[in-house]
């Protein structure tokens, strides 16, 4: 339980537990707002992501895509100037429709849908976590069914669940279903050419096989994200002074003069899937901060989570496609070989090739979506790892961060990988640039109906 209270998700769940307890008393309770319900579910999604074992940034990004989309689709029929994604996303054609003559409570639909999709996508989570999901659903249900006709309640819940189940069925064909069972392809033989990725020695994971080598073949949410132009990698060259050499030399030189602030950035954005809600979780968390910080409606809130979730999911698919297409080495391979035998990065290597940076691409995708929804300016404080124990080995604390725009946060995400010594600047630049393209293909789907109103 100690870890439980160390972050925002923990706190909101604590509030929920209290709600459950006080729910038994006759005292009048404060009813949640629609937006609060949305945020509770976003936080629950982050909690499940964090506390489900063997999770990966790839699988997590996909899960955010489906939970976000389900959130949106479970309410969108109630808002005529918004469009369903049904028919817009490849193979998504069988979403249930509403009976126009009947009434629905959209919060109840959303509530049922979120519970259903989370338990399906995260079928591998623990019994304890499933109980947490169920109790959140129950608390919200109890509050919102009170003033609603019994039949409407049932109709809304049924609709939410039907949407979730249709989306889940569709998700099974994207190539990532139960992907946690196939984290590492042990039969795979890596390319063995100069500059090729080598299993890390200073590693985040015990695996010497790279993570999800086939993830790049997965279906993207936006069809256009299947056709993003390949980035350019500079040619392998071990000659000192060559562009390739310089990329790695810069990582090395940066590491020699890391400031405390840079070290703090490096560990903050680590977002190791074993101990955190993963990098795409960090983006989903920013979406929650943005929704919380703006006066927006239920449908607008759900649209933000759908777009951010789908954008980070597509970002990871593209990123993984390129990672295995280029299969490039990490600084930890090049630097000891050609620059300094004893060198080791500040942060341990994740188990997959380098180019381009997954952190950068997904952070850029999320920031681009958020800017599109809320504009460039937004001041927010990132408390994702607040209260985490100091890293004694690296003599660095987890220090909360304040940003004045979404992009500023994305830029620091990318830079942090360079400070950590696990990505070159080129990996990050390409990641940021491609993330923007991917995000555009998401927000340019027909979310709003131009003919209405």
């Amino acid at each position, binding site marked *: 339980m100690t870890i439980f209270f160390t972050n925002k998700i923990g706190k909101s769940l604590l509030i929920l537990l209290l709600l459950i307890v006080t729910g038994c008393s006759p005292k009048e309770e404060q009813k949640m707002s629609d937006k609060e319900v949305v945020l509770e579910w976003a936080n629950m999604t982050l909690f499940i992501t964090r506390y*489900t*074992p*063997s*999770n990966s940034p790839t699988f997590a990004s996909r899960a955010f895509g489906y939970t976000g989309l389900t959130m949106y689709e479970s309410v969108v029929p109630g808002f005529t100037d918004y469009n369903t994604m049904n028919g817009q996303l490849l193979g998504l054609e069988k979403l249930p429709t509403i009976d126009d003559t009947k009434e629905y409570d959209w919060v109840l639909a959303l509530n049922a849908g979120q519970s259903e999709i989370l338990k399906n996508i995260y*079928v*591998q*989570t*623990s*019994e304890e976590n499933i109980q947490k999901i169920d109790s959140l659903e129950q608390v919200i249900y109890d509050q919102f069914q009170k003033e609603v006709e019994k039949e409407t309640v049932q109709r809304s819940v049924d609709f939410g669940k039907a949407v979730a189940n249709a989306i889940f069925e569709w998700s099974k064909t994207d190539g990532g279903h*139960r992907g*946690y*069972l196939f984290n590492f392809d*042990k039969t795979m*033989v*890596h390319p*063995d050419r100069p500059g090729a990725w*080598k*299993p890390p*020695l*200073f*590693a*985040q994971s*015990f*695996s*010497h096989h790279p993570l999800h080598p086939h993830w790049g073949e997965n279906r993207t949410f936006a069809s256009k994200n299947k056709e993003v132009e390949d980035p350019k990698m500079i040619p392998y060259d071990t000659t000192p002074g060559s562009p390739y050499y310089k990329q790695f030399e810069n990582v090395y030189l940066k590491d020699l003069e890391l400031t405390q602030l840079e070290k703090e950035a490096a560990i903050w954005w680590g977002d*190791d899937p*074993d101990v955190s809600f993963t990098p795409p979780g960090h983006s989903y968390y920013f979406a929650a901060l943005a929704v919380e910080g703006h006066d927006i409606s239920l449908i607008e809130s759900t649209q933000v989570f759908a777009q951010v979730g789908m954008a980070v999911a597509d970002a990871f698919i593209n990123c993984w496609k390129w990672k295995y297409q280029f299969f490039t080495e990490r600084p930890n391979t090049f630097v*000891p070989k050609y620059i300094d*035998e*004893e060198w*080791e990065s500040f942060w*341990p290597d994740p188990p997959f090739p380098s180019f381009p940076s997954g952190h950068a691409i997904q952070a850029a995708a999320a920031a681009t979506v958020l800017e599109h929804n809320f504009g460039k300016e937004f001041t927010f404080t990132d408390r994702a790892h607040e209260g985490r124990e100091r890293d*004694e*080995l690296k003599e660095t604390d987890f220090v909360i961060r304040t940003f004045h725009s979404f992009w500023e946060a994305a830029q620091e995400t990318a830079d942090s990988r360079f400070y950590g010594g696990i990505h070159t600047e080129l990996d990050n630049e390409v990641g940021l640039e491609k993330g923007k393209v991917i995000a555009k293909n998401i927000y340019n789907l027909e979310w709003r109906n131009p003919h209405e109103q």
Partner: protein
Amino acid sequence: MNNNTKTFTNYLVISIFFFGWVSHAQQFTDVTEDSGINHQYEVYEGTFGGGVTVFDFNNDGFEDLYITSGIKDDKLYLNNGDGTFKNVFEGSGLEVTSKYVTQGVVSADVNRDGFRDLFITTITTTDGKNIIPRAKNLLFLNNGDSTFKDVTNEYRLEDLNSFSTGPSFGDIDADGYPDLFVGNYFQEFTGKLGIIKDATIVSANQTARSYLLKNNEGNSFKNVYDDYGLGHKGFGFGGVFTDFDNDQDQDLLVNQDFGYKAVPNFLYQNEYPNEHFEDASKQTEMDLKINAMGAAVGDFNGDGWMDYYITNIKFNMLMENQGNGRPFEDKAKELGTYNLAISWGANFADFDHDQDLDLFVSNGDLNPNCTPMGNFYFDNNYNTYTEKGRELGINDYGIGRGSVIFDMDNDGDMDLLVVNQKPILNYPIASTTRLFRNDIATGNWLKVALKGVQAESNGIGSRVTVISKGKRLIREIDGGGSSHLSQNSVIAHFGLGANTKVDSVIVDWTGGNTQVLTNVETNQQLQIIEIAQPKNNQTYVWYLLGVLILIISGIYLYRKK
């Protein structure tokens, strides 16, 4: 460059490494082929295994070997006494191990019948039926006629389903019955797994609690991990029982993989006679946050305190004991035991008989993608080390794992066996287990074999001290878990240079008994049988005090000379 040319070039380079120094006079001699040892460890998946134990299973005075082979049949090598070994695995009663992916092995006299028994760790079965790789570890009693009996279930070990790595025998409660510490890597289960859901599979790769198995008077084992206050969860590579604080009980050094991410290494202080281990990791600064693979135990600087060489990826650590109450200090860089590789086994021994501890380190890459890396030999010269692996012909480029020291030919010096893994992908040389005969030792020597009466039968955990011309040399009897997944000879070995006599040999038996022999001839193997003392007796305390005064004045006199 295509693959073939590259392989050829590698081969050429390595050939030069190997043969370039053949003309050198004094070397280790690779006698693998002549000795009849033909072994290669085959991994199940990834990089785990294997190990070897040195044990004279037929009590003929020549030390035999048990070597784990992973998915293949293990080997039981009988030492013929003429420099050759014979695999007598078939018909030994150990054939059931072929159903398991074996990892490490240790030996002790579990039931005190005078014969060495075997404990073998496993990670899964070889039938491919386990969705989650786990299996019980295996215990075999020596029948006394060169055959063994599987007593795993009888000793209540069948419910402990684990992904186990390094085992170690030690006598934590000094009752003469050897207890076990078993390192577990991935989450362990008790009993049979029911219906396996996705949730079970994803939680299986989490960190594990290791086992501390207490021997109940030679009849059964009980896991007392929590009762003794251990309780940590991590990626365990096992541990080694050793007396780091010189209070004559067995403390526990625990090696953990991914110490920078999961839990770090531990140093547990035995609070015998209380049944408890106190976590002394932080105060001793032995909470190393590294990929700790194994440890060599030895007092390399001759100050009377045990030091530890911990193997790692790239940066091995030479942890120098500063005495009670002071943190250990890493001297690897300063003293020269610092070459970079991926290291597993390590052994301190006085290979050249010049009265100090040299250090052998077994290196090997991580399957399946392997680059050859030679083993290290660090020659100790006035407490600074020089790497001489190539010069001494012992820098084998196989994928090294466990390594052990023993006197294969009873000529008084320490020979070496290194377990090598089979490369999964292309590899420029044959990576097979190697036996190196020591042809570098020139000085005098003494070997001491212990026979415990109240202590463990082979003296496991006891300490032998030799005082010779003012020099004090100490050795612990290895219960296994030193090196990597392996166990060295239980016969203490001392190199003595030009000394033809030693002034005294002192045995500090686990449990508190002490014996002293004086004026001992060199170049022989002594056997010292424990003289049982009534426990908790006043006269015993006075006797011990008397002996201590004798030793202290002895040392004092010699230092004055």
